[in-house]
């Protein structure tokens, strides 16, 4: 199975490394050369230097026969555009897009783009943590 990870920062590089460990054939794309060092000294997967908005870069990274595309650059709008290009132009069935803004994540999710919103996830986790504090004193025996 081939995976393309566009944006190789903290999130993208971790996803690339984990998928690689799980046996995927991974190619990472980033516009900064330093991003490659995030993948460690023993990276066996692919790495393409360039911007994910560039069709030629996407082709070079093998988007045409990728089984999964993860879009996780540091720009929400960039991610949303690249995600739609992967889905609509290259007909990728599994496209996962990181969008930090919950409102845009929701709008594009409704339009059929698989957006993941770390902000919403963090809000839920934090709220759960606060609620757990509320429960505990009540549960404690008087």
């Amino acid at each position: 199975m081939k995976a393309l990870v566009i944006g190789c920062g903290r999130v993208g590089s971790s996803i690339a490394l984990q998928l690689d460990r799980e046996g995927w054939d991974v190619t990472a794309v980033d516009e900064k050369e330093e991003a490659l060092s995030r993948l460690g000294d023993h990276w066996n997967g692919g790495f393409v230097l360039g911007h994910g908005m560039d069709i030629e870069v996407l082709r070079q990274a093998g988007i045409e026969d990728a089984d999964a595309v993860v879009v996780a650059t540091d720009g929400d709008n960039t991610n949303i555009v690249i995600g739609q290009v992967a889905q609509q132009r290259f007909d990728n069935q599994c496209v996962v897009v990181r969008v930090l803004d919950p409102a845009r994540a929701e709008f594009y999710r409704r339009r059929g783009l698989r957006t993941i919103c770390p902000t919403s996830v963090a809000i839920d986790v934090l709220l759960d943590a606060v609620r757990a504090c509320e429960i505990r004193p009540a549960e404690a025996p008087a």
Partner: protein
Amino acid sequence: MYILVAGGGKVGANFARVLLQDGKREVTLIEQRRDRFERLEHEFEHQVLLGDATEIYVLERAGIARPPEVVAALTGDDEDNLIISQLAREKYGVPKVIARVNDPRNQAHFDLLGISPTVSATRGLMALIEHEVPEHDLVHLLELRKENLEIVEVMIDQGAPAAGKRVEKLDLPEGSRLISITRNGHSEIAVGATELQPGDQVLAILQPGKEDELRRVLLKT
């Protein structure tokens, strides 16, 4: 008419200024950089808003839900312009959306996502340069994207296959028509009986992709 302009750089600010000139339009300009915003505020006062125009709450504060008759996405960032255009059209039903393309390589993304019309300074300049200083025998003057047609200009050379022929005798490719002939500074509409002469400048309308066939009929020996 209410027009929302996203991006208060040179393009957006000048566009807003021109729109406001005759006092018949209502305009809101959105700019996200505080230094720019403060400068614009002196001139545009309450008509400029500080914020990221790709944020839904900013667009709503600017009145996108009314909705405006026109939204112009004119920021210096193509991704932002794409998102603003999609939100305006698809979330708020704005009838007319115009987007600026900064990097002409991104035009394909605007086309893919159905964002039209687009304006591109680079594309405009290239067309102008081609027209003024033709490097090719066939110059693109105007693209009618929605209609899937384009208008081109060709110069009939001495010895060109079309020279000395009447328009009705030309075996023009399907999906193409000659519009006009300009000779010695005078232009006339091309009709069947119009005879082409060397030195004529001919305007033609055709479907994109028919250029080579047209070239063969008019220019190549």
